[in-house]
């Protein structure tokens, strides 16, 4: 075989490799957007209440089962269910924060972590008791549809999820920047005593923030379900991913969560490509540990 | 002048980003003295104190104790060589009793439980905490907590005691009660450096006073000298204050 022929061949395989790389990258970005949405709720709660909501993953599982039930029992499409589940989960989050977390934890950080751990144990195992450990999915006509973007074939539901996430993040930003409630939320986040002195009902704002964070999960669940599977333990996989994103982006930063989510999605997708499916998640945890141990303020945060 | 002082700080500078909290400040603490460090709000007293106590490293400068350079020595090692501190915002071990609180300090020199507990009791009695020995530290009054701060620090049997605003937050009668306590500590052979806001008490207590303003050491000397130093008066009361006061005094004399 001549030199030129070999060069052409290797060029061809490089092209192929590049295509695979590109599609892994694109897929990572798409998945990362939903991760970002999950992390958005977490970081918002952290930024305002300064607490780590350990039940975030389990609440996401609950939302995914809610989507599942809405589809199986009522024939509701996830993209329609989102308009019912989002307000429902807002109320759930509001109630949990106001009726359970605050009174039970006596304002102690360690207690808050334990109470939210308790909530996560209850949700996860109640789902296990009701739905058993079987993995379930919903069957929607567009579940496997793809769209062609340049050289890539992208899953339509994932593209929808990507766009929807950006829209939600934009809406959230508008809400925080423009609305009175948003201003109150930002005031409480900065200086809760001062905010209280200005007549802001801090307990109410806390609960509203928790509600918004929880509502983000309902949206994420509706966007995830067309392509993801659900079982009672699925939240575990998401919770550390979400924590990683939040830590990576800087605790409490919305832009950070968005960027962190996209980064993590890409990292997961690429390490899955190069190290195999089972070790793909290791990359995320290693990032988590390295960032926490060596740069706790996050990639975009100022050094303490 | 005597030989090397017990504690010597030379050219201490501490920067936080662009902000210079302490700027080339030097201070000597003679063995057996009560030395006061005063200054208006935001003068850098607390930062300077934190550097001496080993809770922050200075950007430049050196701290020596008995002639030994301790600038980079961590806080717990400073306690071992005989430097103890209290906290401006009292930091009791809230879940423990007064006795157990003091015992944590006493364990430094007395590894056995019996000895540490006995030592803790002694010190509590000396500082007037006897009746509260078995109370939870979280239940003490502010004055009680200030005493507990001192008791715990004393339990480490220091040769130098750093007091960070132990009088702040006390009412006049509590301050009056506290002054002999501080004196008695010095008389038992412990050198004291006291950072204080309450001027009057400092004047009563201290042999030497140093004044820090805007990060710089602007005056040193006996309390009476320092109090009449125009630079000090200006630092506390603003530019031109010394002149105005002189003029007023002149007017009233006339």
């Amino acid at each position, binding site marked *: 075989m001549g030199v030129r022929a070999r060069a052409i061949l290797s060029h061809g395989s490089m092209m192929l490799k590049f295509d695979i790389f590109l599609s892994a990258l694109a897929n990572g970005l798409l998945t990362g957007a939903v991760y970002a949405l999950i992390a958005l709720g977490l970081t918002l709660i952290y930024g305002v209440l300064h607490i780590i909501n350990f039940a975030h993953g389990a609440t996401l599982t609950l939302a995914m089962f809610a989507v599942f039930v809405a589809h199986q029992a009522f024939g509701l499409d996830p993209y329609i269910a989102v308009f019912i589940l989002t307000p429902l989960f807002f109320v759930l989050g509001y109630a949990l924060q106001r009726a359970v977390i605050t009174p039970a934890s006596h304002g102690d950080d360690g*207690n808050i972590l334990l109470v939210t751990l*308790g909530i996560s144990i209850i949700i996860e*195992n109640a789902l*296990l008791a009701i739905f058993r450990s079987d993995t379930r999915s919903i069957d929607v006509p567009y579940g496997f549809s793809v769209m062609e973007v340049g050289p890539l074939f992208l899953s339509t539901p994932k593209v929808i999820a990507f766009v929807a996430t950006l829209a939600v993040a934009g809406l959230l930003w508008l809400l925080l920047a423009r609305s009175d409630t948003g201003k109150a939320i930002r005031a409480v986040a900065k200086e809760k005593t001062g905010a209280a002195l200005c007549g802001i009902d801090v307990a109410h704002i806390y609960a509203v923030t928790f509600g918004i964070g929880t509502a983000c999960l309902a949206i994420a669940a509706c966007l995830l379900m067309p392509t993801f599977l659900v079982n009672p333990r699925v939240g575990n996989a998401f919770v550390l991913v979400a924590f990683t994103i939040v830590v990576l982006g800087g605790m409490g930063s919305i832009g950070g969560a968005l960027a962190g989510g996209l980064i993590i999605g890409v990292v997961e997708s690429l390490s899955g490509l190069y190290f195999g499916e089972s070790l793909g998640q290791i990359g995320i945890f290693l990032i988590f540990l390295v960032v926490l141990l060596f740069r706790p303020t996050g990639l975009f945060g100022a050094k303490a | 002048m005597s030989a090397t002082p017990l504690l010597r700080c030379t050219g201490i500078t501490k920067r936080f980003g662009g902000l210079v909290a302490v700027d080339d400040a030097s201070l000597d603490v003679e063995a057996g003295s009560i030395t006061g460090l005063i200054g208006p709000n935001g003068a850098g007293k607390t930062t300077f104190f934190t550097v001496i106590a080993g809770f922050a490293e200075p950007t430049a400068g050196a701290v020596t104790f008995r002639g030994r350079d301790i600038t980079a020595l961590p806080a717990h090692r400073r306690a071992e060589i005989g430097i103890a501190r209290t906290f401006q915002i009292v930091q009791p071990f809230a*879940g423990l009793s007064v006795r157990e609180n003091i015992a944590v300090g006493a364990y430094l020199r007395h590894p056995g439980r019996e000895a540490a507990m006995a030592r803790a009791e002694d010190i509590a009695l000396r500082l007037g905490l006897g009746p509260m020995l078995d109370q939870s530290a979280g239940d003490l009054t502010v004055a009680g907590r200030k005493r507990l701060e001192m008791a715990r620090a004393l339990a*480490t049997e220091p040769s130098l005691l750093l007091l960070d605003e132990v009088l702040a937050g006390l009412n006049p009668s509590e301050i009056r009660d506290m002054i002999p306590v501080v004196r008695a500590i010095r008389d038992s052979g412990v050198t004291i450096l006291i950072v204080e806001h309450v001027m009057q008490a400092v004047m009563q207590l201290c042999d030497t006073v140093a004044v820090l303003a805007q990060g710089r050491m602007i005056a040193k000397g006996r309390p009476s000298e320092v109090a009449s130093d125009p630079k000090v008066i200006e630092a506390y009361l603003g530019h031109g204050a010394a002149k105005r006061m002189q003029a007023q005094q002149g007017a009233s004399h006339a």
Partner: protein
Amino acid sequence: MKGGLFTSGYGPILIVVVALAVLPFGFSANTTLNFLGFVLIVTLAAQGWNLLAGYGGQFSFGHAAFFGMGAYGIALAQVRFGLNPWLALPLAIALGALTGTILGYLSFRARLRGSYFALVTLAFAEVFRILANASTFTGGAAGVLIPLRIDAANFQFADKRSFYWLALSFVAFVLLLTHWIARSRFGAYLVAVRENEDAARALGVDALAVKLKAITLSGGITAAAGCLYAQKFLYIDANLAFGPWISVEALLAPIIGGIGTVFGPLAGAVLLLGLGEITKTFFTWLLGGAVPGIDLVVFGVLLILCVAFAPRGVLGVLRRILPAFRGGRA
């Protein structure tokens, strides 16, 4: 030691241990003995957690990391290297302790506290779980099967009671150790660091060293529980050894029993697992079939109730109600 057995606090430990030791003469049913043996394993794991979190205030959410090191350590030493399990036992415990030291060094050096420390320990446990599940050395997803060779010299007992007494001796040892630590300088320093790290440092306490010592001991103790688990069931996989279940039970037991007390982990484990059995039996009877996870739902509710209403756990409540229980506090 001044004073008698009871004023020094060792008396109650002796009574409890003796009472537990004679228990198997009352029951002989294998299921009961199995259950009690399991309770002791969870107790031991929880005792490790209690030392670090209860006394030292460092809340770990990932004690499975140590439990799994013990379990995999003793199992692989036998299966891969042909070591006698009795010889493997101290090695596996040392492995757990070393894991504690390393994990502690990394997180405490980075000044991680509170929620951050909890998350880091959880992440470590998850990393170990994924690695153990993927590596061929650890048997991958199939796990490790310890060959059945019943012989006391082989750490496998024909009589269930022997295993129970062995586990009890571990628990008893840690009860004594905990009590001794609680009254020692190290214990006082540990509690001081929990209550206020800066104040402790000012009093000459090397906070980093104290925390490292605690997490090393804690890791070793919980690894011992993992060893017992592996030898009891002769089978482990990544989810059993490094899974969240043991992290959760190791922290639930002391919190429910009485955090930062000598007997808290034991009382909590008995209560927790006992209640778990009752719940499972009740729902099986009610619904005519086993309901997975229902016991854990009860545990979660119990955790929240304890944090809300009984911060000193069940023993704390008893102490408030019954004057006889007072004075036993370390």
